[in-house]
C-alpha cells in the first residue's frame, strides 16, 4: 500500500466500540491495555473537539483554524498510473499551482478537486478531507479499461479510464470526483462502517455532497438540478445516468435502488447493498431539499453536514439514527418549530424511515 502523506486519525479510534475498549483495558495484555487506553483518549479528544467545533459558526471557525494552516487553498497532486495495476503512487503529472498539461484526465481531476475543495471550504467552512488541510491526491489512468473510481481509505482517490461500455473516463464527472472526496470526509467524521445500513449512509453522503458540489459549481437551485449521479461518464450500458436521487431505481435499466424502506434490499453482494440502499437516504435528502426550495447546499446540505458530525452518530449508525440526527441538527440551527425541521421530517417520511 502507498504510505500516507499525512497524519490521520486511527480508524481504530472510531470502529471499536467504547465498551470493547473498556473490556480490553480491564482484561487485555499490557500492550493491548496501553493501545486501548490511547485509542479511547484519542476518540474522546476527537469527540470533544468535534462538539466544540459544531457549536461555533462558520465565521468563527474560519478565524480559529490554526490547526489547518491558513485554509482556503487546496494542496493537490495528480499522479499518472499509466494504466498499471500498481497502487503505489505513479508519476507526478501535475502539482498544486502547476500549469495545465496535455492530458485531460489530469486536468479534470485537478480542476474538479479544486471545485470540491472550494465547495467544502466556502459553504461548510471545511479545510479539505480532514478539515486540517490534508493533501488531495488523485491517481488517474489506473489499471486498464478500468470502469471504476474509488477511495482507498488511505488518502488516495483512484480513477480508471473506463471500459467504454459501463463508463468512459471517470474524471469527466464533477459529481464523481465530489463523491470520492466525500468518502474521505466521511472517514474523518462519522467513519461509517462500509457494510449494510451504515455503508449505505456512507454511500449516500458521497452522492449528496457529490451532487451539491456540482449544483454549487453551476449555481443551480434544487428545483433546477438534475439530481443525477454520473450522467457525464456512463457508457451505453448504463445510459442515461448511474443513479437518480430524485427517482431512485429509474436511472438506467440495471438501477435497482429503492426510494423507500419498503424496497430495502437484503443482499450479501456489494458489502450488503451499500450502493443499492443508499437510494433511501438519497431520496430523503432530495425531498428535504426540494421541499425547502432555493439552493440545496444552503439549508439541507448544512443540516446533513452537521449530522455527519453529530456526536451521536457512530460508525455503525443506521438510517434511523441519522434521520434523528438531521432533525436534531435542524432544530439546533433553525429552531423548532421551523420550516427546516418540517422539511427534514417530510424527507424521511417520504423515504418511509421512521423517526
Amino acid at each position, binding site marked *: 500500500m502507498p504510505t500516507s502523506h499525512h497524519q490521520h486519525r486511527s*480508524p481504530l479510534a472510531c*470502529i471499536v466500540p467504547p465498551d470493547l475498549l473498556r473490556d480490553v483495558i480491564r482484561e487485555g495484555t499490557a500492550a493491548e491495555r496501553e493501545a486501548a487506553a490511547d485509542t479511547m483518549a484519542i476518540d474522546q479528544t476527537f469527540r470533544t473537539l468535534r462538539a466544540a467545533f459544531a457549536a461555533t459558526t462558520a465565521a468563527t471557525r474560519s478565524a480559529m483554524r490554526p490547526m489547518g494552516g491558513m485554509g482556503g487553498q487546496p494542496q493537490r497532486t495528480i499522479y499518472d498510473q499509466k494504466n498499471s*495495476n500498481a*497502487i503505489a503512487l505513479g508519476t507526478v503529472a501535475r502539482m498544486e499551482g502547476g500549469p495545465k498539461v496535455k492530458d485531460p484526465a489530469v486536468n479534470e481531476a485537478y480542476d474538479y478537486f479544486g471545485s470540491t475543495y472550494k465547495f467544502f471550504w466556502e459553504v461548510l467552512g471545511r479545510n479539505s478531507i480532514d478539515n486540517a488541510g490534508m493533501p488531495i491526491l488523485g491517481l488517474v489512468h489506473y489499471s486498464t479499461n478500468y*470502469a*471504476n*473510481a*474509488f*477511495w*482507498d*481509505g*488511505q488518502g488516495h482517490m483512484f480513477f480508471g479510464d473506463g471500459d467504454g461500455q*459501463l*463508463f468512459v473516463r*471517470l474524471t469527466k464527472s464533477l459529481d*464523481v470526483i465530489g*463523491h*470520492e472526496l466525500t*468518502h474521505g470526509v*466521511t*472517514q474523518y467524521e462519522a*467513519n461509517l462502517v*462500509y*457494510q449494510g445500513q451504515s455503508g449505505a449512509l*456512507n*454511500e449516500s453522503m*458521497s452522492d449528496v455532497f457529490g451532487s451539491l458540489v456540482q449544483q454549487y459549481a453551476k449555481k443551480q437551485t434544487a428545483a433546477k438540478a438534475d439530481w443525477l449521479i*454520473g450522467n457525464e461518464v456512463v457508457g451505453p*450500458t*448504463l445510459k442515461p445516468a*448511474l443513479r437518480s436521487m430524485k427517482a431512485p431505481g429509474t436511472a438506467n435499466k*440495471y438501477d435497482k435502488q429503492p426510494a423507500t424502506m419498503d424496497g430495502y434490499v437484503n443482499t*450479501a*453482494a*456489494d*458489502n450488503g*447493498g*451499500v*450502493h*443499492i440502499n443508499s437510494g433511501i437516504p438519497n431520496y430523503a435528502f432530495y425531498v428535504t431539499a426540494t421541499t425547502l426550495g432555493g439552493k440545496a447546499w444552503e439549508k439541507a446540505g448544512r443540516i446533513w453536514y452537521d449530522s455527519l458530525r453529530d456526536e451521536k452518530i457512530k460508525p455503525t449508525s443506521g438510517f434511523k439514527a441519522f434521520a434523528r440526527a438531521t432533525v436534531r441538527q435542524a432544530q439546533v440551527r433553525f429552531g423548532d418549530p421551523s420550516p427546516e425541521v418540517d422539511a427534514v421530517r417530510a424527507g424521511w417520511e417520504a423515504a418511509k424511515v421512521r423517526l
Partner: protein
Amino acid sequence: MGTQVRLTRSGGFAGISLVATVDLDDVPAETAEAVRAALKQVDFNPSRPRSQGGPLRGAADMYQYDLEVIGDRRRSLTAHEPLADPGLQKLSEVLLPLARPE
C-alpha cells in the same frame, strides 16, 4: 453436468453486479482448461485474511468478488479488491469478459 463456476463482481462506484456462470462441460475446451488451472491456484482457506477478508479499512467503491464452485463438493469465497490471490486474479481475467450485468 460438469463443475459449475459462478463469479460475481459487485460494488465499485456503480454498484452494478457482473455475474459469470459457466458449466465447465459447456464452455470451449480452452476456457474450461483456463478456469480449471486458475481454480487450482485459488486459496479457499478462510483463515487467510487477504483472500477472504473484508474491504480495506476506510475504503469505499472498491470491488467485491464472490466465487462459488459446485462440483464434487461446494466451495465458495468472498474477496475484495485489490485481489491478493493470483488464482482469483487469473479466474477473473478469464470469466469477467463472459459476465453480464445483473
